[in-house]
């Protein structure tokens, strides 16, 4: 493909797509100092390397990208060349203005996207997972960027819908790629332990089965079956196990209030906590605490 550079407000092709800030393909033949200093990004960028080797700093981590690699930079993250300049090579990128990624980790792209509520939340969460660099080998992404370019230039019937669908697809394949990256789908005990760590890190969050399944890289049905088989519990019941176990520790420590413990461990309310706790242990949380304090 030849070089091109489409920019919002300048390129006529982008007029129907106010959310696309830039779409470009660049062959960089010479190094220019300070051509890529590290700055915080305010939109969402997806880079695809066609040729060459790029050394970048993304979110304060060093990444080396080779042909076929994709990097996604989220709004607010810092991005720049490892040495302050753009390396020699060919790369393609799209720069998208998204409405926001909300504090719970939900991706809100904008009205143009046809991702469902659930998918937005799952995709957002996986993209935000801080221990995973958003950098992966994904040749498909290059093809999609090419298709977006073609649709924009040809403007055939339905291109409006097609372009937006292709951007959604880009989000989907990158997310899928990320869940597979650290997961060969061979070692369930290890994968499950990793999921459990993620659940524990955010126990107060209202996890859905869809989200948990996506983190593991499985469909919901297969995930349910695997978890049941391995742990003896459904995913949500397993989560209750962890919640109650953590709550017991906090109750025995005797500092926080029952309500605070309930919310910290992911129950909707102290009422919900009490009912679940009593059903399992026969004690209300306050009785349980009193019993353990009585011994003191």
């Amino acid at each position, binding site marked *: 493909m030849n070089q091109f550079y489409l920019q919002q407000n300048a390129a006529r092709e982008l007029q129907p797509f106010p959310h696309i800030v830039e779409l470009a393909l660049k062959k960089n033949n010479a190094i220019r100092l300070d051509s890529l200093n590290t700055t915080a990004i305010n939109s969402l960028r997806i880079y695809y390397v066609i040729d060459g080797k790029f050394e970048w700093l993304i979110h304060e981590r060093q990444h080396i990208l080779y042909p076929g690699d994709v990097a996604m930079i989220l709004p607010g993250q810092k991005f720049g060349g490892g040495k302050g300049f753009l390396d020699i090579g060919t790369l393609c990128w799209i720069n998208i203005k998204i409405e926001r990624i909300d504090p719970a980790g939900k991706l809100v792209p904008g009205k143009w996207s046809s991702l469902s509520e659930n998918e937005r939340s799952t995709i957002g969460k996986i993209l935000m997972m801080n221990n995973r660099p958003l950098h992966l080998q994904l040749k498909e992404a290059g093809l999609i960027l090419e298709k977006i370019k073609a649709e924009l230039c040809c403007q055939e019937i339905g291109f409006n819908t097609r372009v937006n669908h292709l951007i959604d697809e880009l989000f989907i394949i990158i997310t899928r790629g990320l869940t597979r990256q650290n997961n060969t789908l061979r070692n369930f005990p290890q994968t499950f332990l990793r999921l459990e760590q993620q659940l524990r890190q955010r126990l107060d969050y209202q996890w859905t089965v869809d989200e948990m399944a996506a983190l593991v890289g499985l469909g919901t049905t297969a995930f349910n079956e695997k978890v049941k088989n391995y742990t*003896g519990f459904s995913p949500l019941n397993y989560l209750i196990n962890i919640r109650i176990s953590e709550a017991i520790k906090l109750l025995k420590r005797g500092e926080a209030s029952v309500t605070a413990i309930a919310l910290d461990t992911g129950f909707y309310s102290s009422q919900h906590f009490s009912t679940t706790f009593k059903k399992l242990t026969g004690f209300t949380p306050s009785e349980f605490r009193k019993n353990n304090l009585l011994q003191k």
Partner: protein
Amino acid sequence: MECVITIELGTNAVRVFAFSLSGELLASMKGSYPTFHIQPDYSEQDPEQIFITMLYVLKNLLNEKIHPQKIKVRCICFSASMHSVLAIDENGVPLGNAITWSDNRGKKVAAALNALPACKKIYTATGTPIHPMSPLIKIAWMNENDKERFKRSSKFLSIKSYIVQQLTGKYCIDYSLASATGLLNIHTLNWEPDALAFAGIKADKLPELVPVFHSPGRLLKAYQTSLGLPAGVKILIGSSDGCLATLGAGVWGEGKATITIEDSGAVRIVGKKVLQDEKQRFFNYLLTKSYYVSGGPTNNGGVIFDWFTRQFGEFKNPFDIEYSMDTLMSEAAKVDAGSEGLLFLPYLLAERAPIWNPNARGCYFGLNINHGRQHFIRATIEGILYEIYSIGKTLQEHRSIKSLSINGSFASIPFCAQIIADMFNKPLYASKQSNNSIGLGAFLLSAVEMGIYKTIDEAAQTVVVPDRYKPNKQNHKIYNSYFRIFESLSVKLFDEFESISNLQQQPC
């Protein structure tokens, strides 16, 4: 109808079984809990999560399978993995997680004790090999390296003691589980003063010693209510997984040995006398005052074949390891016994019995240009089983073994069972319940306590052992000649194991 419930607090999961009074399995359920490895040698579990998981599984089993059928629960009997340590404060609140059997943080402490003259005396008195698995070493480690926790500890419990205390309010430990702590004198049945001194504690820091038939008391009222059980249900402290797996396999008498292979494995024999080994290679655990279960444990059982399958097996569906294993097994069967001279030392997780070498590592040996993928598969399986044979062979220096009984998920695979029979050149039996021998053992123990059987011997005889594998003499010959090389390599590589293990432990 009436039933006995057995609760097995295992390495990765709690398993709850319900047996009719005639020993028929009525229902079973499991619930798993995680093991945390916060540092390379650490293995810990959350006692509260184990408790909650146990309660949840028990409740589900009662509500779904027992109460609707109007089955009356007579007795609940416990079994547990050996060697765990949980420190609690003066209010009974756990000080951090429980340290499990596979935790190796006490390596240096164990090595230090091994170098002392007291070592032999302690081993002879306690019957537990000096190894980081043993609570003796774990407590001594805490004394040296985690002083704050050590000082705040009012007691050092096993996981089972904690769980039973949560349910009944009483702290106790059965002689059986206590005999695996490295702290109990298995001859006098008192805590061993030399061992206590090495650990840096007094006997009052340990739970009360009780027989396996002891009932610590009634379920607390709240649990009676939440579980829907009457006050009269008898709680039995029970024994350890190792002793009960042996009882549940029906091996109770001269000339018999049990081979258990799950993730890890063990070869065990039962006798009325302690097995005294000069080289301190075997454990001697008590079931009751008159029975010792002696034998040797291996780290490298089915877990090694799991590893192999994950690396080299074909996966048709995500995480479908069973399919992948079956395929590998049938490929292995296409190669003759002995894998045409490809040998495998399975020490990926270092090794306990019989070489007791924390530096041992895995190795394929004898590879030539004609070996292919199938040879590797078969050699891997054979290597795991040679290791089992090597424990059995060492045991035979002390006792004669006439027949074998197997249990555990890996040993029960017919392909493996046949190889074991061939290697040992002995007839081999697999009980119908070879996947839940521990539960069955706990049932038999309860049944003796309830007077259903007069003695443990009588109870053990009721275990049906229908499947019989006859050894193939030809294969035995082949295995035997390769085993000699296996055995000598395991010892000969001592220095190289140490060097490679040192290099592996260096940060890159």
